[in-house]
């Protein structure tokens, strides 16, 4: 009887572990796909940000005007 119970328990646990593994694996795969999508979008955003930053820097705001230049500009307006 004891042997029967142990064997049944072991079989049941084995099945349970197999089932749990399958569930976890499936969940992991799902997460992996989601993370891959997120990563793709992040890459896109990073590239867009980098390109935007480069564009802004390339605008070349020039040197900061001197007080005299500022005053001249004001008065000519």
């Amino acid at each position, binding site marked *: 009887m004891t042997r029967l119970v142990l064997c049944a328990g072991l079989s049941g646990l084995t099945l349970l572990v197999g089932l749990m593994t399958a569930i976890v694996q499936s969940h992991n795969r799902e997460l992996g796909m989601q993370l891959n999508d997120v990563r793709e979008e992040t890459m896109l955003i990073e590239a867009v940000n980098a390109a935007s930053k480069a564009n802004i820097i390339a605008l070349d705001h020039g040197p900061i005007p*001197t007080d005299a230049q500022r005053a001249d500009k004001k008065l000519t307006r």
Partner: protein
Amino acid sequence: MTPSEKPPQANDRPVGDTRASAQVGTGASTQVGTGASTQVDERFKSASGLRPASAFVLIGFVLALVAARAAIISLHEEGEQPHNLQHLPILPVGFVVTDSSGVPMAGSVDYLELDMSPNAMWQAHTPDAMAQKLSVALGGQYSPQEMLERMLPDVRNGRITARNGSAGPLLLDDAQKSRVDAWLARGTLDTKKESRGPIHGIALVRVPSGRWQIQWEPQVLLSEAERASHGYAKPLDWSRRIADDLGACLLGDAAAQIDTDEERATLRTHTWFALMPTQFRCIDKEVPVACAQAVHDVLKEERVQPHQMEIVRHQKRVYPVKGTQRGVAPAVSVLGRWATLEPDAARRKAMRELNLPADDSLWSSDEVDSVQKRTQLCIFQPSPMNGLELLSKNVLEMPEWQDWLRVRGEEYTFLANQVPRQPRHNYFQELIPGDEPPHVVTTIEIGLQRQLRSAIQKTMAVNDPALVMAIAIDVATGDVLAVDSVDKYEMGGFLPAVHTYTPGSTMKVVTMASALEEGVVTPDEKIDAHHNTFVFEGRRIHEAEGAKDKDVVTAAEGLAFSINAVLVQIGTRMTDVAMHQHLVDLGYGRAPRIGLGGESMGTLHPLPWTRTWTQASICYGHEILVTMWQHATALATIVRGGHFRPLRIVKAVEQYGVTKEIPLVEGLQNQQHDTYSAKTCQEVREMMMLGARIGTGRKVWRDDIVMGTKTGTAERTGSELCLHVELAHVHEHDCHGAAACRALLKGKKAHNGSCYTSSMCIFGHRPEGGREVMVYVVVDEPRGKLHFGSEVAGPAAIAILREALGFTSDGEEVEQAGPDGFHAVSEAAADAGDQPWSEAVHAAEAVHAADRRQTGAKHAPR
């Protein structure tokens, strides 16, 4: 129990009598029950009559067969191990080049490229639909028709001609033609199947050889309407049908022998490849940042696979301070550029890097592979070629940084799993972020650099020379604050280190310093200048215009007024060995090894010199060729006080907020002892200051700067080529100054009068102290009315010096602070704050202030 009473054995009864067996067994256990061994035997009796050992053998045999098959598959049969774990290509970590205060001058930024494989894409998607959607996603940058043209690169005049690989168009014989015609007319090869009408969009065209070409219109054949008319919902099914049927038509009876999926797939692939040959096409070199997300969404929504079309991330170099106008020379040409190499040059570079002999028959197969890989890399992957870009790359590769710098690129690992007949799915595994790009901090001051550029461009416009070069140096450290050049003939290379010229009278500074150091003259010694009639050992020494009226002068005045006769008399008092040694110590006659790309060594005649000609000529800067870098280094050494320092243009490396300074070079041979003493250099400085006050530099004299000058006006001899003629010829014929061409050009001139190299060296600091800056400007062959150094190069030199010392900012005069350190500013200037939102208020206040001033109203000073 007697032998006759023993229980019947399984073998004693007929096979298959299970009931009897069960009864016997049961009976045995209940009736006999005399011993444990007998019980076990009874329990394990086989119901089938087979002994257990036979069953085990059978199972073992089957397992062995399976194992053998598995072993054959895995070890013997050809095939590829699936590599599901994949890595995205690692983008190398770039570097940022900054000016001395951290303003980025060059850096790598990401950009997105839209790439596709027309061959893969149009097997599974409809051209019209994709063109419409992508056109919208790209913000209307391209119309749907333009998108189609880009995405169907094989189309000519609306049609694609099927190709037979690289062998040209696919040609059909009459039998093939008739089979294809029948298929097109009926719409199917299956004779039992009911025809759904002809297939549109494919035509057979006869060629002069009498054979037939397949020409097809992808917009028609792959359209949704055509697909639907033949009962196919999915583009992939339709394209496969086309490829399968067309392949069968081409093969004829041989098609019947195809019976495996692999053979069928191969035929389909080949047929589709003939119909749509292009495997790669860049649709948009740079997807606008505002559209990237929309394009990504379209690709996702349409389930476009990466091998069909994808947005690919690349890196490019950007130069924020270079300016973006096409045709305008870059504002910071010293930055250099990145480029790819031509195949030959790439192979030579690969061989050089691997230290391989020129004879490739001596290479091992590994070396051949290595050369091929490196060559491909040089051809397809841009790398720094010259300028600060090249220098920065080399600095970062120096061994002393290897333990500290981190240059690991971003690594993305994913599982790419594909179930047969299903799209591939990628599963995230690991993402290791890339390191922060290191910053290479240069000594360049970007504001000063702009002004230097502006000044030499102005000089170019006014004097029309072949080229102008200028450099500004922090005297104490030898740091290059700004350096640039402009030329008329697209000479290429970093001219301050490449272009050689006759330095002329600026060389007198070196002659005088050498003579003082050798003790052959004192500053106050009186020397006869001979009124422009000096004959040195039978050779007539000519003077420039301003020095012709001088009689007896001191040695100091001789330098200040740049009198050739005086410097020849002084310089020839030294031995040629002593003078030559001073020049060698200052770096003349050898490449400075700056690291910015190509360099010239200049020309310093080897000893012995003829006293009357070579030595006398070198005394006033002739018979010697220098680069601007060499000469500026030498002049800065004298102005500094005699200690040689190679000019420095990169001063630190930064990463993750940590800055590592690059120490000033001190270990050179000519730094072990100073070639000139401080006293000698001080005396020469005073002579140059005299020259600035009353001598050849008086035209640029400013009393608000403690300054010294030396001008140079070298007239070319008749044997030298006119630089304009030579450079124009080289530019036109790309002959790089071949001897035959030089002979051809001799005597020709591109302007009236003599050819001059005008230059000016000027150093100075503010009266109250602060850093001292030396500026050196070279104008080679000005074609305007002026040719003296002070007139041609002087205005640019003083403008650059004033900017470097803070008297001007961005070329505009800066109001100087009072003794208390405060500026006196007008009310309008004081009000001109950085609050753009209050501009209207400030404007109104300015108007009121003006009114009050007019009415004499008093108001409190700010």
